[in-house]
Protein backbone atom coordinates (compact mmCIF):
# COMPACT_ATOMS: atom_id res chain seq x y z
CA UNK A 1 0.00 0.00 0.00
CA UNK A 2 1.59 3.25 -1.05
CA UNK A 3 1.63 6.53 0.87
CA UNK A 4 -1.17 8.19 -1.10
CA UNK A 5 -3.52 5.28 -0.51
CA UNK A 6 -2.60 5.18 3.16
CA UNK A 7 -3.24 8.87 3.57
CA UNK A 8 -6.54 8.76 1.71
CA UNK A 9 -7.61 5.83 3.83
CA UNK A 10 -6.61 7.65 6.99
CA UNK A 11 -8.29 10.89 5.92
CA UNK A 12 -11.42 9.01 5.00
CA UNK A 13 -11.48 7.42 8.43
CA UNK A 14 -10.73 10.72 10.17
CA UNK A 15 -13.44 12.55 8.26
CA UNK A 16 -16.01 9.85 8.79
CA UNK A 17 -15.20 9.76 12.50
CA UNK A 18 -15.92 13.48 12.66
CA UNK A 19 -19.43 12.99 11.39
CA UNK A 20 -21.15 11.22 14.21
CA UNK A 21 -24.26 10.68 12.13
CA UNK A 22 -22.31 8.66 9.63
CA UNK A 23 -20.62 6.76 12.42
CA UNK A 24 -23.93 6.01 14.06
CA UNK A 25 -25.37 4.82 10.78
CA UNK A 26 -22.41 2.59 10.07
CA UNK A 27 -22.50 0.98 13.51
CA UNK A 28 -26.22 0.51 13.73
CA UNK A 29 -26.33 -1.03 10.30
CA UNK A 30 -23.64 -3.62 10.81
CA UNK A 31 -26.09 -5.87 12.59
CA UNK A 32 -28.93 -5.92 10.09
CA UNK A 33 -27.17 -5.97 6.77
CA UNK A 34 -27.09 -9.75 6.52
CA UNK A 35 -30.74 -10.22 5.57
CA UNK A 36 -30.78 -8.00 2.51
CA UNK A 37 -27.78 -9.29 0.62
CA UNK A 38 -27.71 -12.83 1.94
CA UNK A 39 -24.60 -12.06 3.99
CA UNK A 40 -22.45 -11.98 0.88
CA UNK A 41 -21.52 -8.31 0.79
CA UNK A 42 -20.31 -6.19 3.69
CA UNK A 43 -21.93 -2.82 2.95
CA UNK A 44 -19.47 -0.85 5.08
CA UNK A 45 -16.34 -2.23 3.46
CA UNK A 46 -17.91 -1.97 0.01
CA UNK A 47 -18.57 1.75 0.57
CA UNK A 48 -15.00 2.33 1.81
CA UNK A 49 -13.68 0.49 -1.25
CA UNK A 50 -15.93 2.54 -3.51
CA UNK A 51 -14.74 5.85 -2.01
CA UNK A 52 -11.10 4.75 -2.32
CA UNK A 53 -11.66 3.67 -5.89
CA UNK A 54 -13.14 7.07 -6.67
CA UNK A 55 -10.25 8.95 -5.05
CA UNK A 56 -7.63 6.97 -6.96
CA UNK A 57 -6.85 7.44 -10.64
CA UNK A 58 -8.35 4.87 -13.00
CA UNK A 59 -8.11 3.74 -16.61
CA UNK A 60 -11.77 4.32 -17.48
CA UNK A 61 -14.76 6.46 -16.60
CA UNK A 62 -17.41 4.57 -14.68
CA UNK A 63 -20.60 6.57 -14.21
CA UNK A 64 -22.62 3.88 -12.43
CA UNK A 65 -23.02 0.13 -12.26
CA UNK A 66 -25.65 -2.28 -11.01
CA UNK A 67 -26.32 -6.00 -10.77
CA UNK A 68 -29.14 -7.12 -13.06
CA UNK A 69 -31.79 -9.63 -12.03
CA UNK A 70 -29.79 -12.38 -13.79
CA UNK A 71 -26.90 -11.64 -11.42
CA UNK A 72 -24.82 -9.98 -14.12
CA UNK A 73 -22.81 -6.87 -13.26
CA UNK A 74 -23.61 -4.03 -15.70
CA UNK A 75 -21.29 -1.04 -16.03
CA UNK A 76 -22.00 2.34 -17.55
CA UNK A 77 -19.13 4.61 -18.54
CA UNK A 78 -16.59 4.89 -21.28
CA UNK A 79 -13.10 3.44 -21.76
CA UNK A 80 -9.84 5.34 -22.19
CA UNK A 81 -6.73 4.34 -24.16
CA UNK A 82 -4.02 2.36 -22.38
CA UNK A 83 -0.52 3.24 -23.57
CA UNK A 84 2.26 1.21 -21.98
CA UNK A 85 5.99 0.84 -22.60
CA UNK A 86 6.81 -2.84 -22.22
CA UNK A 87 9.78 -5.13 -22.74
CA UNK A 88 8.77 -5.27 -26.42
CA UNK A 89 8.20 -1.54 -26.88
CA UNK A 90 5.07 0.56 -27.08
CA UNK A 91 1.72 -1.25 -26.80
CA UNK A 92 -1.68 0.45 -26.98
CA UNK A 93 -5.22 -0.85 -26.50
CA UNK A 94 -8.51 0.37 -25.03
CA UNK A 95 -9.17 -0.19 -21.35
CA UNK A 96 -12.52 -1.78 -22.21
CA UNK A 97 -10.50 -4.94 -22.99
CA UNK A 98 -10.24 -5.51 -19.22
CA UNK A 99 -14.08 -5.62 -18.88
CA UNK A 100 -13.92 -3.53 -15.67
CA UNK A 101 -11.93 -6.25 -13.95
CA UNK A 102 -9.51 -4.83 -11.41
CA UNK A 103 -8.04 -7.87 -9.65
CA UNK A 104 -5.97 -9.41 -12.44
CA UNK A 105 -8.39 -12.15 -13.56
CA UNK A 106 -8.93 -10.82 -17.07
CA UNK A 107 -5.84 -11.27 -19.24
CA UNK A 108 -5.47 -9.09 -22.33
CA UNK A 109 -3.22 -10.33 -25.12
CA UNK A 110 -1.74 -7.63 -27.31
CA UNK A 111 1.47 -7.44 -29.34
CA UNK A 112 2.53 -10.92 -28.21
CA UNK A 113 2.34 -9.91 -24.56
CA UNK A 114 -0.18 -10.57 -21.80
CA UNK A 115 -1.50 -7.81 -19.55
CA UNK A 116 -3.57 -7.73 -16.38
CA UNK A 117 -4.98 -4.83 -14.38
CA UNK A 118 -4.57 -5.06 -10.59
CA UNK A 119 -5.79 -2.14 -8.45
CA UNK A 120 -5.71 0.31 -11.39
CA UNK A 121 -2.12 -0.62 -12.27
CA UNK A 122 -1.25 -2.38 -15.52
CA UNK A 123 0.95 -5.49 -15.09
CA UNK A 124 2.83 -7.37 -17.81
CA UNK A 125 2.82 -11.14 -17.34
CA UNK A 126 5.99 -13.17 -17.71
CA UNK A 127 6.23 -15.00 -21.05
CA UNK A 128 5.39 -18.46 -19.70
CA UNK A 129 2.55 -17.41 -17.38
CA UNK A 130 -1.09 -17.85 -18.33
CA UNK A 131 -2.73 -16.36 -15.22
CA UNK A 132 -1.53 -14.05 -12.46
CA UNK A 133 -0.59 -15.82 -9.26
CA UNK A 134 -0.32 -14.01 -5.93
CA UNK A 135 1.70 -14.61 -2.79
CA UNK A 136 0.28 -14.29 0.76
CA UNK A 137 0.57 -10.49 0.88
CA UNK A 138 -1.30 -10.27 -2.45
CA UNK A 139 1.67 -9.28 -4.59
CA UNK A 140 1.80 -10.68 -8.11
CA UNK A 141 4.63 -13.21 -8.37
CA UNK A 142 4.79 -13.77 -12.13
CA UNK A 143 3.97 -10.27 -13.40
CA UNK A 144 5.67 -6.89 -13.22
CA UNK A 145 4.56 -3.29 -13.61
CA UNK A 146 5.16 -1.50 -16.90
CA UNK A 147 5.86 2.15 -17.69
CA UNK A 148 2.35 3.52 -17.95
CA UNK A 149 1.71 6.51 -20.23
CA UNK A 150 -2.02 5.84 -20.47
CA UNK A 151 -4.58 8.58 -20.90
CA UNK A 152 -6.09 7.90 -17.49
CA UNK A 153 -9.02 9.75 -15.97
CA UNK A 154 -6.73 12.38 -14.45
CA UNK A 155 -4.70 12.86 -17.62
CA UNK A 156 -7.93 13.24 -19.55
CA UNK A 157 -9.08 15.80 -16.98
CA UNK A 158 -5.87 17.80 -17.31
CA UNK A 159 -6.10 17.78 -21.11
CA UNK A 160 -9.74 18.84 -20.99
CA UNK A 161 -9.04 21.66 -18.52
CA UNK A 162 -6.10 22.86 -20.61
CA UNK A 163 -8.25 22.84 -23.73
CA UNK A 164 -11.04 24.79 -21.98
CA UNK A 165 -8.55 27.36 -20.64
CA UNK A 166 -6.88 27.68 -24.04
CA UNK A 167 -10.14 28.15 -25.96
CA UNK A 168 -11.67 30.51 -23.41
CA UNK A 169 -8.69 32.80 -23.10
CA UNK A 170 -7.68 32.94 -26.76
CA UNK A 171 -11.26 34.01 -27.46
CA UNK A 172 -11.01 36.69 -24.76
CA UNK A 173 -7.62 37.90 -26.03
CA UNK A 174 -8.88 38.16 -29.61
CA UNK A 175 -11.85 40.25 -28.57
CA UNK A 176 -9.62 43.03 -27.25
CA UNK A 177 -8.35 43.65 -30.79
CA UNK A 178 -11.75 44.71 -32.07
CA UNK A 179 -13.82 45.68 -29.02
CA UNK A 180 -13.26 47.76 -25.91
CA UNK A 181 -15.43 45.50 -23.75
CA UNK A 182 -15.46 41.72 -24.29
CA UNK A 183 -18.78 39.99 -24.88
CA UNK A 184 -20.12 36.54 -24.08
CA UNK A 185 -17.81 34.23 -22.13
CA UNK A 186 -15.09 36.86 -22.14
CA UNK A 187 -17.22 39.17 -20.04
CA UNK A 188 -17.35 36.50 -17.34
CA UNK A 189 -13.62 35.83 -17.49
CA UNK A 190 -12.39 39.43 -17.48
CA UNK A 191 -13.38 40.21 -13.86
CA UNK A 192 -11.60 37.04 -12.70
CA UNK A 193 -8.42 38.04 -14.52
CA UNK A 194 -8.66 41.52 -13.00
CA UNK A 195 -9.33 39.97 -9.60
CA UNK A 196 -6.13 37.89 -9.80
CA UNK A 197 -4.23 40.98 -10.90
CA UNK A 198 -5.60 43.51 -8.42
CA UNK A 199 -6.23 41.35 -5.35
CA UNK A 200 -3.48 38.73 -5.63
CA UNK A 201 -0.54 39.86 -7.77
CA UNK A 202 -0.35 43.61 -7.11
CA UNK A 203 -0.51 43.70 -3.30
CA UNK A 204 1.75 40.69 -2.80
CA UNK A 205 4.43 41.08 -5.47
CA UNK A 206 4.51 44.85 -5.77
CA UNK A 207 3.60 47.40 -8.40
CA UNK A 208 6.96 47.24 -10.19
CA UNK A 209 7.37 43.52 -10.75
CA UNK A 210 3.94 41.92 -10.78
CA UNK A 211 3.52 41.91 -14.58
CA UNK A 212 6.20 39.29 -15.11
CA UNK A 213 4.41 36.75 -12.91
CA UNK A 214 0.85 37.34 -14.11
CA UNK A 215 0.91 34.53 -16.73
CA UNK A 216 2.04 31.97 -14.15
CA UNK A 217 -0.44 33.08 -11.50
CA UNK A 218 -3.35 33.19 -13.94
CA UNK A 219 -2.51 29.75 -15.32
CA UNK A 220 -2.25 28.21 -11.87
CA UNK A 221 -5.44 29.88 -10.68
CA UNK A 222 -7.61 28.80 -13.59
CA UNK A 223 -6.03 25.34 -13.83
CA UNK A 224 -6.78 24.54 -10.19
CA UNK A 225 -10.19 26.20 -10.20
CA UNK A 226 -11.47 24.45 -13.34
CA UNK A 227 -10.12 21.08 -12.21
CA UNK A 228 -11.71 21.54 -8.76
CA UNK A 229 -15.05 22.33 -10.41
CA UNK A 230 -14.70 19.37 -12.78
CA UNK A 231 -14.25 17.21 -9.69
CA UNK A 232 -17.83 18.07 -8.68
CA UNK A 233 -19.35 16.70 -11.90
CA UNK A 234 -20.64 13.11 -12.02
CA UNK A 235 -17.64 12.13 -14.15
CA UNK A 236 -15.70 11.88 -10.93
CA UNK A 237 -12.47 13.61 -11.82
CA UNK A 238 -10.20 13.81 -8.81
CA UNK A 239 -7.19 15.53 -10.36
CA UNK A 240 -6.28 18.13 -7.72
CA UNK A 241 -6.81 15.38 -5.14
CA UNK A 242 -3.91 13.38 -6.63
CA UNK A 243 -0.78 14.07 -4.64
CA UNK A 244 1.39 13.81 -7.79
CA UNK A 245 -0.43 16.78 -9.35
CA UNK A 246 -0.17 18.99 -6.28
CA UNK A 247 3.53 18.08 -5.86
CA UNK A 248 4.14 19.23 -9.45
CA UNK A 249 2.20 22.48 -8.94
CA UNK A 250 4.13 23.24 -5.74
CA UNK A 251 7.42 22.47 -7.53
CA UNK A 252 6.50 24.96 -10.28
CA UNK A 253 5.99 27.65 -7.65
CA UNK A 254 9.28 26.66 -5.99
CA UNK A 255 11.16 26.94 -9.28
CA UNK A 256 9.52 30.28 -10.07
CA UNK A 257 10.44 31.95 -6.80
CA UNK A 258 13.88 30.38 -6.48
CA UNK A 259 14.89 31.34 -10.01
CA UNK A 260 13.63 34.92 -9.53
CA UNK A 261 15.23 35.49 -6.13
CA UNK A 262 17.06 38.83 -5.93
CA UNK A 263 20.46 39.44 -4.37
CA UNK A 264 18.71 40.90 -1.35
CA UNK A 265 16.59 37.78 -0.97
CA UNK A 266 19.58 35.45 -0.99
CA UNK A 267 21.50 37.67 1.41
CA UNK A 268 18.60 37.79 3.83
CA UNK A 269 18.20 34.03 3.56
CA UNK A 270 21.82 32.94 3.84
CA UNK A 271 23.50 35.74 5.82
CA UNK A 272 20.85 37.79 7.60
CA UNK A 273 22.13 41.30 8.33
CA UNK A 274 21.44 42.90 11.69
CA UNK A 275 21.63 39.80 13.87
CA UNK A 276 24.65 38.51 15.85
CA UNK A 277 27.14 36.62 13.66
CA UNK A 278 26.78 33.41 15.69
CA UNK A 279 23.07 33.25 15.01
CA UNK A 280 23.39 33.74 11.27
CA UNK A 281 24.18 30.11 10.25
CA UNK A 282 21.28 28.84 12.37
CA UNK A 283 18.94 31.37 10.76
CA UNK A 284 20.25 30.40 7.32
CA UNK A 285 19.38 26.74 7.92
CA UNK A 286 15.90 27.67 9.15
CA UNK A 287 15.24 30.06 6.28
CA UNK A 288 16.47 27.58 3.67
CA UNK A 289 14.35 24.79 5.15
CA UNK A 290 11.39 27.15 5.11
CA UNK A 291 11.80 28.17 1.50
CA UNK A 292 12.85 24.85 0.01
CA UNK A 293 10.76 22.41 2.05
CA UNK A 294 8.08 23.80 4.34
CA UNK A 295 6.51 26.37 2.03
CA UNK A 296 6.10 24.03 -0.97
CA UNK A 297 5.04 21.20 1.36
CA UNK A 298 2.28 23.28 2.93
CA UNK A 299 1.13 24.36 -0.55
CA UNK A 300 0.86 20.81 -1.86
CA UNK A 301 -0.60 19.25 1.28
CA UNK A 302 -3.30 21.91 1.65
CA UNK A 303 -4.69 21.47 -1.84
CA UNK A 304 -4.42 17.67 -1.79
CA UNK A 305 -5.97 17.23 1.65
CA UNK A 306 -8.79 19.73 1.08
CA UNK A 307 -9.94 18.17 -2.15
CA UNK A 308 -9.52 14.59 -0.90
CA UNK A 309 -11.41 15.35 2.30
CA UNK A 310 -14.15 17.14 0.35
CA UNK A 311 -14.63 14.24 -2.05
CA UNK A 312 -14.60 11.69 0.80
CA UNK A 313 -17.24 13.57 2.78
CA UNK A 314 -19.54 14.06 -0.22
CA UNK A 315 -19.27 10.37 -1.11
CA UNK A 316 -19.70 9.30 2.50
CA UNK A 317 -22.86 11.38 2.82
CA UNK A 318 -24.13 9.99 -0.49
CA UNK A 319 -23.60 6.50 0.95
CA UNK A 320 -26.12 7.32 3.71
CA UNK A 321 -28.71 6.50 1.06
CA UNK A 322 -27.85 2.83 1.46
CA UNK A 323 -26.93 2.84 5.13
CA UNK A 324 -30.13 4.50 6.40
CA UNK A 325 -32.47 2.44 4.23
CA UNK A 326 -33.62 0.16 7.03
CA UNK A 327 -34.38 3.03 9.42
CA UNK A 328 -36.06 5.53 7.09
CA UNK A 329 -37.13 3.53 4.05
CA UNK A 330 -35.87 4.05 0.53
CA UNK A 331 -37.56 7.42 -0.05
CA UNK A 332 -36.65 8.84 3.35
CA UNK A 333 -33.00 7.75 3.17
CA UNK A 334 -32.65 9.08 -0.37
CA UNK A 335 -34.22 12.39 0.69
CA UNK A 336 -31.89 12.83 3.66
CA UNK A 337 -28.86 11.86 1.62
CA UNK A 338 -29.87 14.09 -1.30
CA UNK A 339 -30.40 17.14 0.90
CA UNK A 340 -27.09 16.71 2.74
CA UNK A 341 -25.16 15.97 -0.47
CA UNK A 342 -26.64 19.04 -2.15
CA UNK A 343 -25.66 21.18 0.84
CA UNK A 344 -22.10 19.79 0.88
CA UNK A 345 -21.72 20.17 -2.87
CA UNK A 346 -22.63 23.85 -2.61
CA UNK A 347 -19.95 24.22 0.07
CA UNK A 348 -17.53 22.34 -2.21
CA UNK A 349 -18.14 24.90 -4.97
CA UNK A 350 -16.98 27.56 -2.51
CA UNK A 351 -13.99 25.41 -1.46
CA UNK A 352 -13.07 24.89 -5.14
CA UNK A 353 -12.69 28.63 -5.58
CA UNK A 354 -11.11 29.20 -2.17
CA UNK A 355 -8.40 26.58 -2.70
CA UNK A 356 -7.50 27.95 -6.13
CA UNK A 357 -7.43 31.46 -4.62
CA UNK A 358 -5.26 30.40 -1.67
CA UNK A 359 -2.79 28.48 -3.81
CA UNK A 360 -2.38 31.46 -6.12
CA UNK A 361 -2.30 33.92 -3.23
CA UNK A 362 0.42 32.04 -1.35
CA UNK A 363 2.41 31.53 -4.56
CA UNK A 364 2.24 35.30 -5.11
CA UNK A 365 3.23 35.91 -1.48
CA UNK A 366 6.29 33.64 -1.76
CA UNK A 367 7.27 35.17 -5.11
CA UNK A 368 6.83 38.60 -3.53
CA UNK A 369 9.20 37.65 -0.72
CA UNK A 370 11.80 36.45 -3.23
CA UNK A 371 11.72 39.47 -5.57
CA UNK A 372 11.56 42.12 -2.87
CA UNK A 373 14.34 44.68 -2.85
CA UNK A 374 15.25 46.15 0.49
CA UNK A 375 16.37 49.71 1.08
CA UNK A 376 19.86 49.74 2.45
CA UNK A 377 20.40 51.84 5.53
Amino acid sequence: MNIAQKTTKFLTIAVIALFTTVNFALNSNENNQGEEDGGKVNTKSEITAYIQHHLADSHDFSLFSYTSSEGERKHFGFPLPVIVWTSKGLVTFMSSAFHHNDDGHVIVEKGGLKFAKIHSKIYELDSNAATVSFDESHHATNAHKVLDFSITKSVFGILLASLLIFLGFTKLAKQYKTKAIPTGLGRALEPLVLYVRDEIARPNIGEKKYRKFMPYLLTVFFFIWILNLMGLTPFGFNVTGQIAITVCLALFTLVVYISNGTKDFWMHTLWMPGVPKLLRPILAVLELAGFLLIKPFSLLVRLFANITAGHSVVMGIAALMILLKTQFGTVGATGISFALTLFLTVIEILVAFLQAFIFTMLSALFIGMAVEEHEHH
Partner: protein
Amino acid sequence: MYNLIGAGLIVIGGGIGLGQIGGKAMEGIARQPEAAGKIQTAMIIIGALLEGLAFGALLLGK
Protein backbone atom coordinates in the same frame (compact mmCIF):
# COMPACT_ATOMS: atom_id res chain seq x y z
CA MET B 1 -6.90 4.05 17.48
CA TYR B 2 -4.06 6.34 18.59
CA ASN B 3 -4.13 7.90 15.12
CA LEU B 4 -7.72 8.90 15.65
CA ILE B 5 -6.96 10.43 19.06
CA GLY B 6 -4.12 12.34 17.41
CA ALA B 7 -6.44 13.46 14.60
CA GLY B 8 -8.91 14.65 17.22
CA LEU B 9 -6.22 16.65 19.02
CA ILE B 10 -5.11 18.22 15.74
CA VAL B 11 -8.68 19.18 14.93
CA ILE B 12 -9.12 20.69 18.42
CA GLY B 13 -5.91 22.69 18.02
CA GLY B 14 -6.81 23.82 14.52
CA GLY B 15 -10.31 24.73 15.67
CA ILE B 16 -9.00 26.90 18.49
CA GLY B 17 -6.61 28.60 16.07
CA LEU B 18 -9.25 29.22 13.42
CA GLY B 19 -11.66 30.47 16.08
CA GLN B 20 -9.10 33.00 17.29
CA ILE B 21 -8.37 34.18 13.75
CA GLY B 22 -12.03 34.44 12.78
CA GLY B 23 -13.08 36.08 16.04
CA LYS B 24 -10.35 38.70 15.97
CA ALA B 25 -10.99 39.41 12.31
CA MET B 26 -14.66 39.99 13.03
CA GLU B 27 -13.80 42.31 15.91
CA GLY B 28 -11.51 44.17 13.56
CA ILE B 29 -14.18 44.45 10.88
CA ALA B 30 -16.74 45.64 13.44
CA ARG B 31 -14.38 48.38 14.59
CA GLN B 32 -13.30 49.40 11.12
CA PRO B 33 -15.82 48.28 8.51
CA GLU B 34 -13.95 50.19 5.79
CA ALA B 35 -10.94 47.89 6.23
CA ALA B 36 -13.06 44.73 5.83
CA GLY B 37 -11.48 43.71 2.50
CA LYS B 38 -7.92 43.89 3.78
CA ILE B 39 -8.77 42.11 7.02
CA GLN B 40 -10.55 39.35 5.13
CA THR B 41 -7.58 38.70 2.83
CA ALA B 42 -5.18 38.59 5.75
CA MET B 43 -7.57 36.31 7.64
CA ILE B 44 -7.75 33.87 4.73
CA ILE B 45 -3.95 33.78 4.40
CA ILE B 46 -3.41 33.08 8.10
CA GLY B 47 -6.23 30.54 8.02
CA ALA B 48 -4.60 28.81 5.06
CA LEU B 49 -1.23 28.70 6.79
CA LEU B 50 -2.82 27.19 9.89
CA GLU B 51 -4.69 24.70 7.74
CA GLY B 52 -1.45 23.68 6.04
CA LEU B 53 0.06 23.03 9.46
CA ALA B 54 -2.91 20.96 10.61
CA PHE B 55 -3.08 18.94 7.39
CA GLY B 56 0.67 18.36 7.51
CA ALA B 57 0.29 16.96 11.01
CA LEU B 58 -2.62 14.75 9.89
CA LEU B 59 -0.55 13.35 7.02
CA LEU B 60 2.58 12.79 9.11
CA GLY B 61 0.47 11.19 11.86
CA LYS B 62 -0.21 8.25 9.58
